[in-house]
């Protein structure tokens, strides 16, 4: 099967940022996104997700290389200093590249 190589950018961060992040990534050229509610822990401590100030989201974006770069850099620059933030990128394949 012929798949087309794209990037998957995953951002794990505070739930409070959801609206802002979605706006940002669409402005940076992504055409879609998926969000899940998660909990976790990292350098900035444990976020257990038992109440609003303590919940993380996991935002996942399928996009082209350049958009992926733009999103990853933007998120780190704009939010990573002050918010619990984790970003990673991986290689994926899709069947309908025109969609992303």
């Amino acid at each position: 099967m012929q798949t087309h190589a794209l990037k998957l950018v995953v951002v794990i961060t505070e739930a409070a940022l959801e609206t802002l992040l979605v706006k940002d990534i669409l402005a940076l050229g992504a055409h879609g996104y998926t969000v899940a509610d998660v909990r976790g822990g990292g350098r900035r401590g444990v976020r257990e997700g038992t109440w609003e100030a303590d919940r993380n989201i996991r935002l996942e974006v399928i996009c082209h290389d350049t958009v992926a770069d733009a999103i990853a850099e933007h998120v780190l620059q704009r939010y990573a200093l002050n918010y619990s933030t984790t970003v990673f990128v991986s290689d994926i394949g899709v069947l309908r590249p025109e969609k992303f």
Partner: protein
Amino acid sequence: MSLDPVVLFFLLGVFARLLKSDLRLPEAMYESLSIYLLLAIGLKGGVELSKHPIGPLLPQVGGVVLLGLMLPLIAYPVLRGLGRLPKPDAASIAAHYGSVSMVTFAVATAFLVDRGVAHEEYMPLFVVLLEVPGIMVGILIAKLGAGGGVRWGALAHEVFLGRSIVLLTGGLAIGWISGPEALAPQSKLFFDLFKAVLALFMLEMGLVAAGRIRELRRTGAFLLAFGTIVPCVFAVIGVVTGRAIGLSPGGAMLLGTLAASASYIAAPAAMRIAVPEANPSLSLAAALGVTFPFNIVFGIPMYHRIATALVPPAT
């Protein structure tokens, strides 16, 4: 000191958490309970408001808003000077203490009801009035301190259309428009069950507050002192304001409690977006880990005594 069951539920949550029980309330339950409480407080206040002409209340409204604007301006220099906190943190904590805790208000009201102490029933109006100004002033201080511009439009939207304000004002408006008779079929859920739902919510608050205690060890003694002394001072300011605007001792006690209480719903949400440099652990540790339990257990009875001493009974 005999503790109200509502406080015992809080302590149960604290113990469960400190003993590392796996007890957790599902987040949807936490949210549902807080939606209920906000609406119920608003409805109750709105129904009472519908019994009064609005005109005579306007001077009180002015006084309460002034109180809200003033409190963070008192807190900020203390946090900077004595606490040696960075500007954003000081501004953020000031905003939390300028705003109010709806649950503390509910517990204080239940305290008065249990003792049969009369108070202005439209007090929930003041909860709404006090929730916003403190946050706005806190943000203003932070932005001015940082020299950056403030996007007031976005900010006002964030603050005025935050969940808690919308539910409180919405409840107030529905109660006010409907009046007591139309709301009678709603009263079995929103009024009769109120105190028990509050108890359940306090269990969750205990779990959450106890989770903040560890932070306190890190942030040291200042926040502990700040979180217990400032509420007492603010309570006196609130009670005196209450007296000045003509409230009964019960009403003045509630205004004192509101002043003494620190927000942990509206303020954290707003400050996280508006002043990202501020460390939310600090403000939550103080508001939730220190001041909330302090008010619930010690503050409320004390503020009641203060109000009884300072405010002449209504005639």
